[in-house]
């Protein structure tokens, strides 16, 4: 009896193990969405900070200040997030991502000070890198008053976090109402437009899955390097051509646009990288460019330094590390 029981247990465990091995891995990973108040709303309400972008001062939104000072913001964002959650696509919580960013600030400081030639990143770029949202939904709203009644005019803009391109938008004014709750007014205004907005987002997701994610990629050379991109020391063609061939082989259907190519610079735009790598992990501009860095090192013994800006821009500086 004991033998039969043990044999049964063995076969059960073995079959479960084999079934687990055979089960196809689900590569489907939904894009991350994050809803933020728009730059326009932040500026109008004074929630901005000045950021030194390599000598030029730029005004950027200060979301932390906005959360601390605007009682409406939380309820408005919660209302919009709810719309996404109801479509099985919960949005990232901006407030939580800001807290994560604060916790990582020490690490970021190390990143920018290591080489002295770091890429300048705005607080927004750092937030994007921390949150890793694929789509940023910018929300602008104004409250219209007509006597005791109020209505809300809103604009929703869906931006591809990698390219900054607008992929969906919706704008409208809700019906006048006597309700004191801004979130309810906004929900009434947005709900009629949400289906179309999400349908356009879906069209973008279909495009990503079909043609790959679009990134911008730049190659530069260190001035201390004794060669340039036109050198033919690494094969039967110029180094820039060898790199171009690699990019062609590692993009979806060879889709990319080489906008500029000189002896010290190559600028690729609309580079369509696969959405997932061989292991099913989502591929970012950094991880994609890093494979080129490894390729140059392993094949031609060329050292290079990889720098990224936000999620969708990568820069490889050739010549040293």
């Amino acid at each position, binding site marked *: 009896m004991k033998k039969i029981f043990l044999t049964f247990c063995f076969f059960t465990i073995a079959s479960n193990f084999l079934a687990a091995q055979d089960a196809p891995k689900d590569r489907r990973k*939904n*894009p991350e969405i994050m809803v933020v108040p728009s730059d326009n709303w932040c500026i109008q309400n004074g929630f901005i900070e000045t950021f030194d972008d390599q000598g030029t001062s730029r005004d950027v939104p200060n979301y932390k200040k906005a959360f601390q000072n605007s009682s409406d913001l939380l309820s408005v964002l919660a209302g919009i997030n709810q719309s996404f959650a109801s479509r*099985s696509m919960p949005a990232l919580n901006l407030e939580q991502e800001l807290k994560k960013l604060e916790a990582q600030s020490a690490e970021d400081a190390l990143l920018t000070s290591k080489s002295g030639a770091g890429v300048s990143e705005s607080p927004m770029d750092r937030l994007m890198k921390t949150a890793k949202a694929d789509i940023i939904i910018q929300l602008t709203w104004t409250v219209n008053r007509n006597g005791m009644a109020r209505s809300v005019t809103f604009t929703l803009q869906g931006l591809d976090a990698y390219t900054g391109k607008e992929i969906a938008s919706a704008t*409208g004014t809700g019906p006048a109402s006597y309700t004191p709750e801004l979130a309810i007014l906004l*929900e009434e205004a947005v709900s*009629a437009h949400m*289906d179309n907005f999400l349908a356009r987002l*879906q*069209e973008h997701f279909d495009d*990503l899955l079909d043609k790959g994610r679009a990134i911008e990629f730049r190659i530069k050379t260190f001035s201390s390097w004794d060669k340039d991109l036109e050198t033919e020391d690494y094969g039967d063609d110029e180094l820039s051509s060898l790199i171009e061939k690699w990019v062609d082989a590692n993009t979806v259907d060879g889709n990319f646009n080489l906008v500029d190519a000189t002896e010290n610079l190559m600028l690729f735009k609309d580079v369509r990288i696969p959405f997932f790598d061989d292991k099913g992990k989502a591929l970012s501009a950094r991880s994609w460019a890093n494979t080129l860095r490894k390729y140059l090192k392993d094949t031609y013994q060329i050292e290079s330094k990889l720098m990224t800006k936000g999620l969708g821009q990568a820069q490889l500086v050739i010549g040293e590390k």
Partner: protein
Amino acid sequence: MKRILPLCFLALFSSLIGCGPKKIDIYTNVWRYSIEPTFTAKAGSKAFKIWSYCRNTSYGLELAKRNAVHGVIFKGIPASADGRVSGQMALLRSSTSESQNQEYFNNFFANGGSYLKFVTQASDEAPDIIRVNNKEFKIGIVVTVNSDLLRKQLEQDGIIRKLGL
């Protein structure tokens, strides 16, 4: 035995008639209708007036319901001219999707099919009836389609994709 034979003949004859296409199916198969936006329904639903064409006005409501669900799935709802009522894109936007899922939609829009779960007449008002010619009427009925539930059903049945990759 002689009495049974006519009964059998009658039963066979009536079943043959029952198998033939009903008039409502003939009207529906051509999908002749137009959509007129009316007012903004509550979230998750769409309300509009559907104008259908048929020879027998008694089929008006049934035809309106079928056409309304068909419109939400395949044609979308236009925005009102004054901009007060926003439009909605069709749930199924690929031009080949209908033919690819022909069998599914044949069952879906069959008499008493699943489409009935998603549509109701918006009010008890009498329909607008316009005589187009000696043989045909144009019937306008305001209906409400639960577009959220309809979308979820189509997602569940694998006809349209869920939001995401």
